[in-house]
């Protein structure tokens, strides 16, 4: 049995060029025969999905992809242009907690008001009001005016009131992003409890970990279109892959800065020039997003304008907060380059990258001798993103290690 059915839903927003929001302007425009100009913009395009009773659906996607609009449509706040939505059961709107709270009323009065808005009768609230304050850990503040509450406190009150409405269907929109850690965990536990009670949940979040943790099914919304739907692992996987591709594209653009732009972060005598720096993965494909443990090749092309004796090639890695991570050069590694061909390539190869999650810059340079003047130096011109899995470790880099348990 489907709790929520969304069939061929289309939704458009009108963005007026010049908002006419007065009667006078509208009448004047009508008399002059001008039509109000506006742009149409489809926020949701042909959305189709079902959520079965007791199922938990996670909706992911970038900001502005239509996730919240979709939730607002399911909860009947926004009308749609085409298609239909069927909902079986009472919806608990968690769209934005604390909506309808009034500063000049006391916490208790607000709970009644909020409860009524959520569709509870007075008697029903009488029965649960103590539980609400207990769950929110705010028993002492029952009669305090809400304007004297901190934002965290009113969030707690709002969440507690919202769960007290005990709806059949929960629509949760990124509400757990606020509040302190311990309360957040408490909320998550409560949502899990609802799930185990067989309630239907639609969960919108940017926290992919919570989505994976909570949901059975997933939908990835991209620009108002369902990009993928299915098992949550599959959907999150596709989504992550697309983020990687997008980052890759942006980094590539950055790396393709014009020579002019590069000039200001570049110095040296120019007797040898680094003409090109590229990063490759183990398949030999150019790449700027790596994972901890991947292979990475940094390939520098150079051109020597005159004969140079004993040049030193150097690469430095700096994290984007300016932490100097490591520096490598050919002299340190005891590689003697007595004479250099006029034109060539040199590779720096990392097997099994030990850098952890972060954004890193690479400096590359050619020196005449250790700490000596540069022939050419590129300062932070190359950006690389490293991703890590939880098991890779914490901090800046991982030392390859093992544990030995002895008696």
């Amino acid at each position, binding site marked *: 049995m489907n709790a929520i059915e969304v069939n061929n839903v289309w939704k458009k927003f009108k963005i007026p060029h010049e908002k006419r929001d007065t009667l006078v302007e509208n009448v004047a425009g009508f008399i002059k025969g001008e039509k109000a100009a506006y742009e149409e913009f489809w926020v949701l395009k042909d959305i189709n999905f079902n959520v079965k009773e007791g199922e938990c659906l996670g909706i992911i996607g970038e900001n502005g992809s239509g996730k919240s609009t979709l939730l607002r449509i399911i909860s009947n*706040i926004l*009308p749609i242009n085409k298609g239909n939505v069927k909902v079986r059961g009472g919806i608990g709107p968690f769209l934005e907690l604390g909506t309808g709270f009034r500063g*000049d*009323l006391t916490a208790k009065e607000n709970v009644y008001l909020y409860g009524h808005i959520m569709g509870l009768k007075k008697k029903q609230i009488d029965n649960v009001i103590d539980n609400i304050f207990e769950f929110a850990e705010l028993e002492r503040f029952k009669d305090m005016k809400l304007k004297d509450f901190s934002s965290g406190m009113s969030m707690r009150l709002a969440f507690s009131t919202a769960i007290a409405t005990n709806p059949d269907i929960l629509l949760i929109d990124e509400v757990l992003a606020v509040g302190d850690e311990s309360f957040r965990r408490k909320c998550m536990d409560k949502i899990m409890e609802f799930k185990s009670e067989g309630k239907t949940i639609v969960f919108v979040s940017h926290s992919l970990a919570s989505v994976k943790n909570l949901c059975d099914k997933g939908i990835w919304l991209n620009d108002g279109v369902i990009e993928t739907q299915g098992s949550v692992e599959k959907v999150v996987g596709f989504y992550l892959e697309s983020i990687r591709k997008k980052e890759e594209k942006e980094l590539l653009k950055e790396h393709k800065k014009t020579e002019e732009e590069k000039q200001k972060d570049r110095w040296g005598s120019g007797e040898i020039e680094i003409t090109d720096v590229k990063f490759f993965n183990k398949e030999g494909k150019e790449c700027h997003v790596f994972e901890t443990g991947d292979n990475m090749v940094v390939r520098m092309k150079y051109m020597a304008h005159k004969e140079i004796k004993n040049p030193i090639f150097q690469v430095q890695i700096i994290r984007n907060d300016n932490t100097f991570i490591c520096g490598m050069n050919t002299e340190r590694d005891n590689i003697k380059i007595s004479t250099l061909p006029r034109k060539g390539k040199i590779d720096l190869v990392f097997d099994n990258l030990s850098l952890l999650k972060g954004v890193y810059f690479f400096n590359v340079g050619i020196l005449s001798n250790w700490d000596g003047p540069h022939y050419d130096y590129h300062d932070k011109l190359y950006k690389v993103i490293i991703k890590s899995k939880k098991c890779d470790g914490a901090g800046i880099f991982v030392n390859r290690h093992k544990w030995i348990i002895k008696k």
Partner: protein
Amino acid sequence: MALDISKHKDLIWELAKRDLKIRYKNSALGFLWSLLNPLLMMLVLSFVFMYLFRFDIEHFPAFLVIGIVSWRFFGGTAGALQSIVGNADLVRKIYFPREILTISSVLSVFVSTLLEFLVLLMLLPILGVSLSFLVLLLPVLLVLQLIFVLGVSFILSSMYVYYRDIAHIWEVVMQAGFFLTPIFYPLSFIPAKYLDLYMLNPMAWFVLAYKDILFYNEMFSFFDLSVMFVISLVFLFMGYHIFKKLEPNFAEEV
């Protein structure tokens, strides 16, 4: 609509209570303060018209205050006008029938009005007007005016979402209306040739009827009652229709 009201009566009442609490600043004293406005109006206007314009109407303050209190009830439309836009955060984020907001706003005005009429009934004998059994007809008028006010409020609150100058326009209409309604002068002041035009103002019918039963101790005619009945129902029907037509886009426009 009746179904919505009965289903959501707790919410309507709670919202109205919130309005009242905020209006009266949570105290009985707050209510007394709210009486200051009509009483002061009564004193000032009595002074102006009795001593400057030399109106020769017996018990003029009583005559005046009946008109003022019933006009204030109609003045509640200015507050109800804000009922959707003023609750934008609710409208944008939670679904519930939107007319609840307007209904509860009118309800809170109605409660204030009842209290004011209660005070008025105590005040009238002091001002020299004795009440007759016709007072028993007061609820009929109050209910009819309530329906009328609700109808007007539906039109205003829903249109205000789209046209923000309605608040200003309505302010002017209210001001003009105060002078074009027989509040501080009797109907006999209106030249006969303008009388039909003058009586197009729906509020004139209500104010006259209140004065009939409270001031002149006369029964209003059956014709008057029928006119008020028709006015109320027409406005309610029209208002509700316009409201329902505009309602679906409230969340986007508000």
